C-alpha cells in the first residue's frame, strides 16, 4: 500500500522533471539550469529505488499503542522516533481517506494535540475507526486545568 502511494508521488515527480527537461531542451535555457535538472533527476532515480525498499522496512517498524493514559508511537528504521503523548492532551482525532486508500479499504488516523499533530498511516478501515473512537473516549477525560 505504501509502496503504491510512494510510486504515485514518484511518478508525478518524474513527469514534472520530464516536462522541465523538455522545456530546457526546447527553449535552451541557461546551461547551469540544465545541470541542476540532471542532478535532480539522478537523485530522484536513487530516491525511487530507495522508495521501493523503504515501505517494507517502514511497515515492519511502525508500532502504536493506545491505553487509558498514553498514546505511544514508534516509527523509523534508521532514524527511530519514539513518542509518548498523554491522552489528556489530545485535542482531536480524525480518520482520513484519500482515493488510493479508499480503493484498498484503508484509513489513516490523525491526532492533534496542543503542541503538534501525529498520524498513523494506512490502517485497515475497521481498525482505524475503532482506534479513533477509542482515543476519543480516552481523551474525554480531562485533567484539572493547569
Amino acid at each position: 500500500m505504501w509502496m503504491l502511494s510512494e510510486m504515485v508521488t514518484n511518478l508525478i515527480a518524474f513527469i514534472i522533471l520530464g516536462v522541465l527537461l523538455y522545456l530546457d531542451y526546447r527553449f535552451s535555457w541557461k546551461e547551469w539550469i540544465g545541470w541542476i535538472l540532471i542532478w535532480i533527476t539522478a537523485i530522484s532515480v536513487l530516491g525511487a529505488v530507495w522508495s521501493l525498499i523503504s515501505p517494507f522496512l517502514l511497515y515492519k517498524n511502525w508500532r502504536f499503542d493506545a491505553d487509558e493514559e498514553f498514546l505511544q508511537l514508534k516509527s523509523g528504521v534508521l532514524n527511530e522516533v519514539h513518542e509518548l503523548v498523554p491522552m489528556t492532551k489530545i485535542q482531536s482525532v480524525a480518520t482520513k481517506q484519500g482515493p488510493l486508500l479508499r480503493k484498498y479499504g484503508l484509513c489513516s488516523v490523525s491526532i492533534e494535540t496542543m503542541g503538534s499533530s501525529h498520524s498513523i498511516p494506512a490502517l485497515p478501515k475497521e481498525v482505524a475507526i475503532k482506534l479513533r473512537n477509542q482515543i476519543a473516549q480516552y481523551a474525554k477525560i480531562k485533567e484539572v486545568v493547569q
Partner: protein
Amino acid sequence: MTKAKRYNPLLMLFNFCKLIRNSIFFVIYFFVIKAGSESTFITYGRIVFFIAFGLTLISIILKWFTHKFELDNRSFHLYKGIFSKSERTIPFSEIQNVNRHTSLFHRIFKVTSVNFETGIAGGDADVRFEVISQKEADRMESHMKSTVQEELATIHASEYKDIASVEAEVKKGISNRTNHYKPTKKDIIKASFTSLSFLVLIPLISSFYFKINEIFHVENEAVGIFEKLIGSWWMVTFIIIVLVIASITFGIVRTFLKYGNYQVSSDHDRIYITKGLIDETAFSISKEKVQAIEIKQSIMKRILGLAEVKLTSAGGLSSEEDTLEINSLYPYLPVKRAYEMVSEILPFYEITQKMTPLPIKSFWVRILWPSWLWIIATVFLLYFKPTVLEVEETWWMLSAILLIIIFVSRLLDFFNTFYILNDHFIQFKKGSMATSLFVSKRDKIIEVNVTRNIIQKMLGLASIGTINRAKPVHHAGINHVSIEMADAFYKWYMERRNEIKVE
C-alpha cells in the same frame, strides 16, 4: 458583572493618533517631496490617500459604536463588527497572563491598555483593551483573578472551607505582595554595560559623520575649515572623548528608561513584573500557569556573573515589539540572586545545581558528527576561491578557521551540557558560549519523544525531547544521552499518571 459596555471614548482619539502617525509617511511623500509633481500616479495617489484616510476615520467612529464588551462571572464577552456581527466568549480560566502597557499617550490621559492573553491558537487569541481607565483595568483584573480563585476553590473543595474565606484571602493577597527585586543604580549601570546598548550610538554617529562629510564636500568653501578641524590631533582626541562620553551616557539613559522602574513582586498566587519609566509595562501571571523556567546567560553576562530568568507562559506575548523581554524577571540578575528568587517566587519549583554530564561516548559523536555548515561553506569557498587581501590561499584558511570555531564551540557545548531528572522536575543545561538552563515540571510537559538515528543506535545513545505549552510550542531537548537515561526519561514521564488530577 456588567451590562455590555462600549469601550472608552478615548479609544477613538487613540486610534486617530495612530492613523495620523501611520499616514505621516504618505503625507510627506505626496505633499512635500512630490509637492510640484503633476504625474498621474501622484494625483491618483493623493485621491486614494484621501479616500483611505476618510474611510479609516469613519470606521474608527463606527467601531466605537459597535464594539462592546461584557464581563460575567466566568468569562469575557466581546461583540464586534460593523456589517457582519460577531460575538466572542472567552472564559477566565483560559487566560494565561495579563499584560498592561502605559505609553506616553496613555499617561497624558491617565488611562492604560490591557491585554488578557490566552493560549488559543490563531489571530484573535487575546482580549485587548487598547484604552481603558486605570481603575477599570484594576477592577477587571481583580475580578478575573477572584473568579478564577473561586473556580479553583470549588474544585479543591477540601483545601478551602468556603468561598468567603478565599475572597478574604484574595483581598489579603493584594496587600500582601512581597517585593523580590528592585534594581539599584549600580545594577542599572552594570546592566547598561552588559547590554552594550551604548554601541547603538556608534552607527548613528558614523552615519551622521558621513552625512556631514557629504555636505561639506558639496560646499567647497567649508572643506578647508573642516579639514583643519580634523587635521589637528588634539581636536580629534577631544571629539573622540566627547563621543565616548556621549555614547556611554546614552547607553545608561537608555537602560535607565527601560529598566529604571523595574520591580518584581509576587503574592500568594500571582507574579507581577513592572518596568519602564515613560512607557510603563506591567505583566502578571498566575503561578500555576508558569509552564517552565529558563535561566539564560550570554557570554557578557557570564563574565559579569549575571543571568536572566525567563518564565514560559502558554499565552502569547504578541502585543508590541519588545514583548520578547517582558516575560523575563529582570534580565540582569546576579546569578546567586537569580536562583534564590526562583525558589522564593515559585516555591514549588526546585532547581538543583548538581547535574549529570553527558557520557564520554557522546563526546566523540558530537565532535565527529559532520558539520553541514562547514561542508557547505567549504564547497562554496572551493568553488569561488575568493582572494582576500591579495592572498590566493584564503579559501582553505577560512575553511580551517571555520572548522576550528565549530570544534571549539562543540567542545564547550559538550562541557556545558548537563541534565537531571529530579523527582518531578527535569533540567537541561546547554550552550557553548551562551548557556541556558531549562527547568520544567512533569505535569507541565505535554509530550515527550525519544529519537535515535543509526549511529546513536550502534553506540547506545539517544536524543530526548520535550514539548511544553507556549506560543509557539516550546521544544526543548538534549542530544546524545545514554540509552539508559532515555529509558529512564521515558519511564519518568509515564509516572505522570500518579500526579495529575483527573476531573
